[in-house]
């Protein structure tokens, strides 16, 4: 999901000049883009050594941390925006982290692979777990330990008493607002407390 159209689509959800915390920031590309294109400041959180190095090479602030240990480093509402781009599906305590996201940030932007995208449904109908460009892993080696759908997150948000400010899908870099649960490989939510 690192293609630039998708990145720009998500970046547009971040108000200019925001103070941003990017959970699972990878190589820091999104933060670097937000700094350059939208005048944002902030930090990335990463667990992986290679990604931490990539961030310092880009000049992006990065804190090496295991997100499953929580966000106790960060005070309530200490960020304008907390990003969780393709991170939620890797977390053991996904529900807690969703709440933490909107505790630390005024708004949280969550993007994750939508398991209900129609090619995935077809695959499961055929009796096999999907292996696609968006979900390129076999069932036995996938790092995606939380497999959910665009519709599932709406239910979880309600359960966790989070406000959904916006939600849509992204497919091939394009915003999908009609039937995103079926038509989009990526699900995006903007949430707040």
């Amino acid at each position, binding site marked *: 999901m690192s293609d630039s159209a998708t990145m720009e689509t998500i970046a547009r959800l971040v108000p200019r000049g925001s103070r941003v915390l990017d959970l699972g920031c990878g190589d820091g590309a999104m933060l670097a883009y937000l700094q350059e294109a939208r005048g944002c400041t902030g*930090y990335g959180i990463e667990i992986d*050594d290679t990604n*931490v190095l990539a*961030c*310092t*090479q880009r000049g992006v*602030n990065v*804190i*090496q*941390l295991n997100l499953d240990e929580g966000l106790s480093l960060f005070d309530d509402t200490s960020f304008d925006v907390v990003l969780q781009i393709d991170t939620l599906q890797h977390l053991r305590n996904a529900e807690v982290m969703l709440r933490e996201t909107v505790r630390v940030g005024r708004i949280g932007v969550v993007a994750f692979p939508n398991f209900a995208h129609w090619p995935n449904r077809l695959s499961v109908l055929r009796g096999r777990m999907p292996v696609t460009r968006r979900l390129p892993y076999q069932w036995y080696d996938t790092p995606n330990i939380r497999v959910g759908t665009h519709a599932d997150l709406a239910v979880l948000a309600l359960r966790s008493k989070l406000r959904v400010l916006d939600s849509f899908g992204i497919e091939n870099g394009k915003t999908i607002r009609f039937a995103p649960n079926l038509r989009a490989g990526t699900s995006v939510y903007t949430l707040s407390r």
Partner: protein
Amino acid sequence: MIAAPQSMHFAAALPLQSGAQIRDYALSFETYGRLNADRSNAVLICHALNASHHVAGVYAGQDKSDGWWDNMIGPGKPLDTNKFFVIGVNNLGSCFGSTGPMHVNPDNGRVYGADFPVVTVEDWVNAQARLLDALGIATLAAVMGGSLGGMQALSWTLQYPQRVRHAVVVASAPNLTAENIAFNEVARRAIVTDPDFHGGHFYDHGVIPKRGLRIARMIGHITYLSDDVMNEKFGRQLRSAVSKTAAAASVGASSDAGPPQGGTAPPGGGEDTLVPSVGAYLYSTQEIEFQIESYLRHQGDKFAEYFDANTYLLITRALDYFDPARDHGGDLSQALARAGSKFLLVSFTTDWRFAPKRSREIVKALLDNRRDVSYAEIDAPHGHDAFLLDDPRYLALVRSYFDGIFKEIAA
């Protein structure tokens, strides 16, 4: 790279945190690389307990005289002396050239000994700032240190926030825990209770409290390593000479194994072959039995040959006293509100003397103050010592950070 030590004399009294002052003192230092035209590429390196101003390079004609951070600093190294002007300085009270307890007190013409004033991290930073003044350096591109050196780097950003652009704080802490002070106290008691210490005036008696220094070093050394690395290095291996003696003794059915050097090695036994620890005990409470004992004694002996007992007391005390949050009701975030620079912090997962969670406290306080900070937790097995070793992730990270600083300077 050839290093050349220099010394600078300071006549004016330096007021110390204790209320005392020190005058007519000298600081030993070394510099590497070249100061650029706008004097913006200077990096100050702060040393920890037993290191010195000799940070990088070698002394002309002296083999094995590498500086203590030579793997980190030099031409083409992570802190590249082709790009930066690097300064190493020996702290006041140390025993490597700067004025210390073994020097003469100008007030009474006697060797300071135990009367050397207690110096703190803040005092050292003030002395370092005077050195930079004399060198014509108003602003540091970065200040960097590990362990106690990291405390000085942190303190720089609080005492001289306008003079530091970046701080690189490695394997450090915002203060010492009770356990950490406890280790220091055991080391100090070992020295002070050595009959050769003479209340700190042993120079007058022509002796050195080597027994105390050895034990202090042995304790320190244990805390710098991790359990895993110690086990990997030494495990339960018996000291080869000892076990060979024991083996010979058991063959000869002798009840008196004698000192380790006294036995005869079994035929064909190589000097360096470690004998498995099965069935070869000396059954002695005082001889060196295990390899780790031999190692610690060796480290202790080496240390007692070159380190000053009063310096050990002073420097461990400086560690104990450091606590920037103390003046702010223990609130580190409030204390670091003054910090003006950007930060890189690094810790090592197996470092239990300056544990990652201590570095995270600093990170949190900086985050609370919205400072630019990056933090890496290197998964290295070597304990506290890791900050001096060649972990490629660690070295690459520091390199990338200094590359960023260099770009900033050039911009």
